[in-house]
């Protein structure tokens, strides 16, 4: 039984890593007031470019750097359209997902040897590193037989929480998403803040994608993310824009995936489709409860200016 729990926990953490990277990025982006529905496209582009670089150069650091840069570049386009050109955030994000889905599929067919496909090839990958000592504690050991990107997440989460809630930087960020006029009056450069955190969000989405193609399921297949980008969008809301809660959500959503194979093996009669629906239904429930709460004037929820363009009043 202990062995079963340990193995489920280990798979859950592994499956949750890419979600956590992208969810922390999206949390920061949305906190600045920008909704980025392009996460799925950015994860796919991060995944395909990271794998292509790892295949050709066997340099994992370079692979990660390229994935981060590609995610950041796509997010910069989103920031340019929504902040500078004040375009509709929903449409811009969706078009980046469509573009990322198409382009990753195109590149996946062309970036292999001699302009051929990448599918089915093997590149350099991140292997699990077992940490001596810690990996002998029952159950907890599941956390200490992971790859290095997962270990990095253990540090990233508290850092993301701390910066958001305990630093001046985080205060400025939250003010920008809550009330850009006030933030502007406080001396915060709203446009620059939104650019910075949208790009950061894209970079982390690219990194999340790279974890999929370099560690979780090393290699490239078309649509490798399988909708994880959308789960990330759900996750951020589910966690009510809090990076620490996003981890619990990622483990829950990642865990659903991990558990369903066990359940099927154990002969459970719940079809997988219904388990997979849970994240989305839970997110809608959270949205409804949260909105209802807000009606009772308790500020808990979405950044108030989320999705709204900000134009400085000229006098």
């Amino acid at each position, binding site marked *: 039984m202990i062995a079963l729990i340990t193995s489920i926990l280990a798979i859950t953490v592994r499956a949750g890593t890419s979600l956590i990277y992208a969810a922390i990025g999206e949390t920061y982006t949305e906190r600045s007031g920008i*909704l980025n*529905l392009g996460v799925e*496209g950015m994860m796919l582009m991060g995944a395909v470019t990271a794998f292509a670089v790892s295949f050709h150069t066997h340099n994992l650091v370079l692979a990660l750097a390229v994935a981060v840069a590609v995610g950041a570049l796509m997010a910069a*386009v989103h920031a*340019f*359209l929504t902040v500078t*050109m*004040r*375009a*509709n*955030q*929903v*449409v*811009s994000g*969706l*078009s*980046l*997902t*469509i*573009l*990322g*889905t*198409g*382009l990753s*599929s*195109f590149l*996946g*067919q*062309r970036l292999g040897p001699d*302009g051929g496909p990448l599918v089915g090839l093997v590149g350099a990958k991140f292997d699990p590193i077992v940490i001596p000592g810690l990996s002998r504690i029952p159950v907890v050991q599941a956390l200490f037989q992971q790859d290095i990107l997962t270990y990095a997440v253990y540090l990233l989460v508290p850092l993301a929480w701390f910066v958001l809630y305990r630093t001046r930087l985080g205060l400025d960020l939250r003010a920008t998403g809550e009330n850009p006029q006030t933030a502007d009056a406080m001396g915060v450069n709203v446009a620059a803040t939104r650019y910075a955190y949208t790009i950061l969000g894209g970079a982390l989405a690219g990194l999340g994608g790279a974890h999929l193609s370099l560690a979780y399921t090393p290699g490239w297949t078309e649509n490798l993310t399988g*909708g994880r980008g*959308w789960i990330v*969008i*759900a996750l951020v*809301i589910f966690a009510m824009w809090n990076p620490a809660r996003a981890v619990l959500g990622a483990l829950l959503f990642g865990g659903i995936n991990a558990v369903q194979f066990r359940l099927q093996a154990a002969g459970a009669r719940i*079809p997988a*489709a*219904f388990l*997979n*629906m849970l994240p*989305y*239904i839970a*997110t*809608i429930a959270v*949205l*409804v409860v949260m*909105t*209802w709460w807000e*009606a009772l004037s308790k500020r808990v929820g*979405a950044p108030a200016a989320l*999705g*709204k*363009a*900000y*134009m*400085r*009043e*000229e*006098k």
Partner: protein
Amino acid sequence: MRIVFEKREAVSRSASVLVPVVSFVISLVLGAILLWASGVSPAATYVAMARGAFGSWPAFTETLVKAIPLMLAGLAVSIAFRMQFWNIGAEGQLVLGGVAAAWVALFWSNFVPAQILLPVAIIMGMAAGALWAGIPALLKAYLRVDETLTTLMLNYVAILYSQYLYYGSWRDPKGYGFPGTAPFPEAAWLPRLAGRAHLGLVFAVIAAVLLWFILKRTRWGFELRIIGENPTAARYLGINIARNIVLALLLSGALAGLAGACEVTGISHRLQQGLSIGYGFTAIIVAWMAQLNPIAVLLVALLMASLLVGGDQVQIMMHLPSAVGQVLQGLILVPMLAGALFTEYRLRIIRSRPSQAPVRAEEVRP
């Protein structure tokens, strides 16, 4: 010297035509750079794509086949967007419409006369789509729950439910493990016009004309436009916003549901994998490029469909990834979105001191 955006008094007519056209050209140029960088002749690729989509009568009917769901879903999205309700759930509404139509076609033939099996299937498909759009509409209208997120989430609930059906309880036992239901009885097949292009094309044209008429010529259409353009004014005019949101979304969902019902009864004749291939998302691009004009939706849907069909053709003829079409679709929107600013604003360069030029810059609608 400063550069400011000044709101135009009226949306620029010339810009609203020019921007989509120029955007399409820019996307072709960007696509050409990508093709050229990967060692393929852009000109040859585009010629092959155009031939694949429009080069012959059979090719054109295939383009129509892909255009029909984009037209219907594009109309569905545009009516919701018209009132600033960001329905990005057309994909799920389309899928559920297909599920409901399949339910009637597969299981109702024992007690529904064959002559009306098809109409009943289509009406049930529309009802299912309306129901799926009605949930977020009610949540928005009465609890103010953000519709972008609820409609997005409901997509995946619908898609997963359809998978559960065709992989599970509705799977054809004689299907050799193929994920799909048994074929529908022929009474539930939507008549075809030419090639595989079916009666859904007529539905789409009728729906576009009706929507155009509603928006331009009826009291209800006027109310919808006011709600979208100026909710405060709508409130002062005594317009019931909540009720209008729900009604418009029922119509929007019904159109998306119709798209799904036509796909299963007109093309696949069964519920199977491939019903959800992103028509509902592409429809958002269609509605946006058409600037929510119902008649323009038909034309833009045709253009988008030609990119999809053209993409399939270059895969067959030039061994290029069919994703070329999807890449071009995604590339159109970047210049399009950037250009939208110019239809509502004009750039003004101010040389004098800021205090001498009182220029009001208003917030662009989200």
